[in-house]
């Protein structure tokens, strides 16, 4: 008696389309990915109180920015990189030193961000960015 020979079909899961599916997914994620655009400078605004915390302008350091991005600390013109050497000794004496940033309304927004960044790097904890309305209410600028 002669048995029929078995068919030699190899069983295998087809994986040829795996790479295609994977590449489709890659394209999807590449298109939807937004790299690192959700990072920035954190700020905490003071709580609104009936009795506002008075920051004496004589005790605080005043950083002013003019229309063209020129910086003046306590009245004297400086470069951005000179802020740190000016601030450090003051912080050594008083680590909670307040720094007020007053930018010209016509100045570019990036100038103010550069100054905030530089002050943060210098180790200033109390940075205050008063709005024009607040400055007007002080009545001394």
């Amino acid at each position, binding site marked *: 008696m002669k048995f029929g020979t078995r068919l030699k079909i190899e069983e295998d899961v087809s994986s040829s389309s795996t790479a295609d599916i994977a590449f489709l997914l890659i394209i999807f*994620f590449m298109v939807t990915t937004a790299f690192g655009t959700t*990072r920035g*400078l954190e700020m905490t605004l003071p709580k609104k109180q009936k009795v506002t915390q008075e920051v004496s302008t004589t005790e605080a350091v005043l950083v002013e920015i003019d229309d063209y991005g020129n910086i003046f600390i306590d009245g004297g013109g400086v470069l*951005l990189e000179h802020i740190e050497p000016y601030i450090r000794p003051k912080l050594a004496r008083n680590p909670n030193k307040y720094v007020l940033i007053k930018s010209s309304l016509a*100045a570019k*927004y990036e*100038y103010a961000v550069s100054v905030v960044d530089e002050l943060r790097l210098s180790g200033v904890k109390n940075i205050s*960015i008063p709005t024009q309305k607040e400055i007007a209410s002080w009545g001394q600028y």
Partner: protein
Amino acid sequence: MRFRRKSNVQAGIPSASMGDIAFLLIVFFMVTTTFSVDKSKVNLPESFEREATVPGAAIIVIKENGELLLSEGDKNPQPAGLNDVLVFALNLVAMQPQMQFTIKASRDSEYRYFDRVMEQLRDANAKNISLLSMQKVAGHSGRGAR
């Protein structure tokens, strides 16, 4: 004359590892992907110090010309007037007092727009604010303040 038989070895580029590489790339993109509701293109300022913002924060987009877009965090930003921020922020703060606001302002926009937005956020009693920025590279001063 007798020619030599051609070799039967077939030339081919092995593609067995392609799937593995592709899946590695998928994992990478899956991990780094953040589905941002805000797709507005804004030329952000640069800063060395950058902290991750809280997902789901309200977004205030200030374009170069002072145009404003507002998003509650889960919807596409909608165009708004410069004085609409107060009502927008008041509603959000009433629902969630610790609401995070992300300001995405163009580096070339005038400071007056930022000032106006900050004033209204302060009036609305907003506490946590984040100023979006790009990473500043050392030695490259960019076009920042001089």
